[in-house]
């Protein structure tokens, strides 16, 4: 917050943590290349970079999960070996992972003492933890019910448990890996207040993120990583989001996809009063209505976990629902009794799912086998009534790989051997080339390199221009704003409202995503 104060400290105190020349390779992939940073005590240091830039690897080295191939770690002026997590904890490092490391059916207290129990019996440890939890809660706005089971807590509270775990272990260097990815804006704000508090108490914090806004908002200094290398370290006060973005990707980001105005035609998708209740009887979608017309892209904005995934799955045919969904004026079955992914495809719905590793691809299948996945019953892929036309499919795959610039263009290669962007192109090629009436797209550019993002966005716009309807779900507001012709915001299973991209901004959408309506009232 106060750079002047930091510079003052820099002369007197040693850095809380210093990395010198850290390198780490996984096989041929150089995840970290000669990385050096210094973080002064009582500051928040941001590390920003795209997915796959090597941020998480670096932090895993710091936490003793991986051993660096080369380099030094110096903590409070002392060179320190961190062979395992225990050593990291001893060195005063606490880590809040992106995916929480909590035992779901344990209580908060049990999770907190796990690994730092006092003696062989649990009882003394539990009561000691209960006491210090009370203190920590008062000190840092970190209140959670110590006896609640983790599975009963909201994501924001679970994250607090992770922070409490680190503090209970006397951590004075706290690393947070993409902490806001799963939070609503309100929860994120609360988190930042906590971090602010921690800084005020002299804790050192390393914040890993790919969100520029967060870096600008809370950090004192920031390092940028790109392709395993540290490209710059600057004072936050002396930089701008544009400069950081450029450092991150190495060239100007294409923030706005070139696209002409939409020419919406007939209504393709009509959703009324759609409800989804999951296995645990929790209502995930609470009666929503949407329409999409031919030749337009409807973007669904929202923090993940607010019903968007279920919406895609209902339309894709593998999640049950009640209500009414019409495609080209015809009702489709939502009970799952007379419909599945196959019948949806027959109705002209194509689906690029949110999670290509689990849904969109069979990772062990070759690219050519994946290229017909979901359409394997189509007549053009059959040789005769009995067997499939494998040779013909391979040939068609070669063509599709060329058109979608999939690299390497080898149909026999298993899907798992392609990079994220190329995997996504395989899925996209398969779905778009079926020429669907409605394309469902979930998180089209998650884990995809920047070059492929541009390509993927262009293809989606092309499909719209060909007069098709597109339903786009993304947690990236930038993506929603630049691609959509209309934007609907989902929160807690409801549609909070619709906006036109030209008439709204990130701030307004962010409020709606947090459940606050346009007029400022809570929903």
């Amino acid at each position: 917050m106060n750079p002047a104060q930091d510079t003052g400290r820099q002369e007197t105190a040693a850095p809380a943590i210093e990395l010198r020349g850290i390198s780490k390779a996984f096989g041929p992939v150089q995840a970290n290349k000669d990385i050096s940073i210094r973080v002064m005590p009582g500051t928040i240091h941001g590390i920003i970079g795209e997915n796959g830039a090597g941020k998480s690897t670096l932090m895993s080295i710091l936490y003793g999960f991986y051993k660096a191939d080369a380099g030094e770690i110096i903590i409070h002026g002392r060179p320190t070996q961190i062979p395992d997590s225990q050593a990291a904890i001893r060195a005063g490092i606490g880590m809040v992972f992106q995916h929480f490391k909590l035992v779901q059916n344990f209580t908060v207290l049990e999770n907190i003492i796990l690994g730092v129990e006092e003696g062989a019996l649990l009882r003394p440890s539990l009561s000691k933890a209960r006491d210090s939890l009370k203190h920590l809660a008062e000190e840092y706005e970190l209140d959670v019910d110590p006896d609640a089971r983790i599975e009963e807590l909201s994501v924001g509270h679970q994250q607090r448990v992770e922070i409490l775990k680190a503090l209970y272990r006397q951590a004075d260097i706290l690393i947070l890996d993409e902490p806001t990815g799963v939070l609503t804006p309100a929860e994120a704000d609360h988190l930042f207040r906590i971090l602010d508090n921690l800084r005020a108490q002299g804790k050192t914090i390393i914040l890993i993120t790919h969100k520029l806004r967060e870096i600008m908002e809370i950090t004192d200094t920031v390092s940028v990583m790109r392709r395993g290398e540290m490209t710059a370290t600057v004072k936050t006060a002396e930089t701008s989001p544009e400069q950081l973005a450029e450092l991150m990707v190495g060239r100007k980001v294409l923030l706005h996809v070139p696209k002409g105005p939409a020419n919406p035609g007939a209504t393709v998708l009509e959703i009324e009063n759609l409800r989804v209740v999951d296995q645990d009887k929790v209502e995930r979608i609470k009666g929503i209505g949407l329409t999409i017309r031919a030749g337009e892209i409807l973007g669904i904005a929202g923090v993940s976990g607010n019903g968007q995934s279920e919406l895609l799955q209902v339309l894709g045919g593998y999640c049950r629902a009640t209500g009414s969904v019409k495609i080209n004026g015809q009702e489709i079955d939502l009970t799952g009794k007379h419909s599945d992914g196959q019948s949806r495809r027959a109705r002209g719905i194509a689906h690029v799912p949110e999670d290509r590793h689990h849904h969109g691809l069979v990772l062990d299948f070759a690219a050519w086998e994946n290229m017909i996945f979901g359409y394997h019953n189509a007549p053009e892929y059959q040789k005769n009534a009995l067997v499939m036309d494998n040779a013909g499919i391979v040939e068609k795959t070669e063509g599709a790989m060329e058109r979608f610039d999939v690299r390497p263009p080898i149909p026999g290669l298993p899907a798992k051997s392609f990079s994220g962007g190329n995997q996504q192109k395989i899925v996209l090629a398969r779905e778009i080339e079926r020429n669907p009436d409605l394309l469902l797209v979930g998180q089209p550019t998650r884990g995809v390199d920047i070059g492929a993002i541009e390509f993927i966005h262009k293809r989606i716009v092309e499909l719209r221009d060909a007069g098709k309807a597109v339903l786009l779900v993304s947690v990236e507001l930038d993506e929603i704003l630049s691609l959509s012709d209309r934007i609907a915001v989902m929160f807690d299973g409801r549609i909070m409202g619709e906006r036109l991209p030209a008439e709204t901004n990130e701030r307004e959408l962010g409020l709606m995503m947090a459940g606050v309506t346009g007029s400022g009232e809570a929903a």
Partner: protein
Amino acid sequence: MDYATLLQVLDSTLRLATPLLLACLAGLFSERAGIFDIGLEGKMLIAGMASGAAAALSGSVWIGLMAGIGASMMLAAIHGVASITFRGNQLISGVALNFVASGATVLIAQSLFSQGGRTPPLSGAARFNPIELPFTEAIKSVPFIGPFYADVLSGHSALVYAALLAVPVTWWVLYRTRFGLRLRAVGENPESVDTAGVSVIRLRYTAVAITGLLCGLAGAYMATGLQAGFGREMTAGRGYIALAALIFAKWRPWYALWATLLFGFLQALALRPDVIERSFGVAIPVPALDALPYILTVIVLAGFVGRAIPPRAGGQPYVKER
């Protein structure tokens, strides 16, 4: 069924439930730590052979017991190496070790004793002999309770009482100690344990070793307590019944006791077709009674269990992220 017959059946229920209970608790430790083990059967079998052989050769049941535990723990160690260190398929490892045990027991018993793969009959100090519980004589005359105490509870071998004692001990270890907390955590989310700086591998090996120990007791009881010597395939699927009991018990120690007592009761009934005929008025063919525990297990697996949620990390080898 009159009271005396009932007591007889209950008495043999306790005997027959003992190996099931020990094996079930054995499986509980392993599965709670996230390691599936369908090799309980093989471990019991090899422990039965080892204890039968060692007891016959040494004349001491205690040496037999040690040998049984040692043999069972050896198989447990192989299972550990396959499923923990080399992240192999835990189910296949279990199946394989069951075959190894089937083959090895007969090979060794045959080469030692040349009695068709059996060990010689045991007697005296080479067997676990019945222990009379205190006050048996005094209470015996009390109506109803007295005969129950004297005929059902009293007069079993030390391992029966050890098995019963193992239930509260297991509960206490699991829910009241640091080791238990970590063990349960490693079966639910090994990452939570790993990031807390505790070795997943060491915890899981410890759990597998306890499984070996308890299966050793179960097998030793089969050969030196329940029967007087080892015979080929003498466990006859008990390892699998114990596994079913474990599912039935939702991986909890006290439930494990009730589940194994139930299955033990069924086995006891199968030994007394006359009792069933007298009680129910129909003759049930012996093969049907033999199959009953297995049929019941299937029914249990098909949903009588309710929502039994197995340990979340069960069966999956632990690989650090990436």
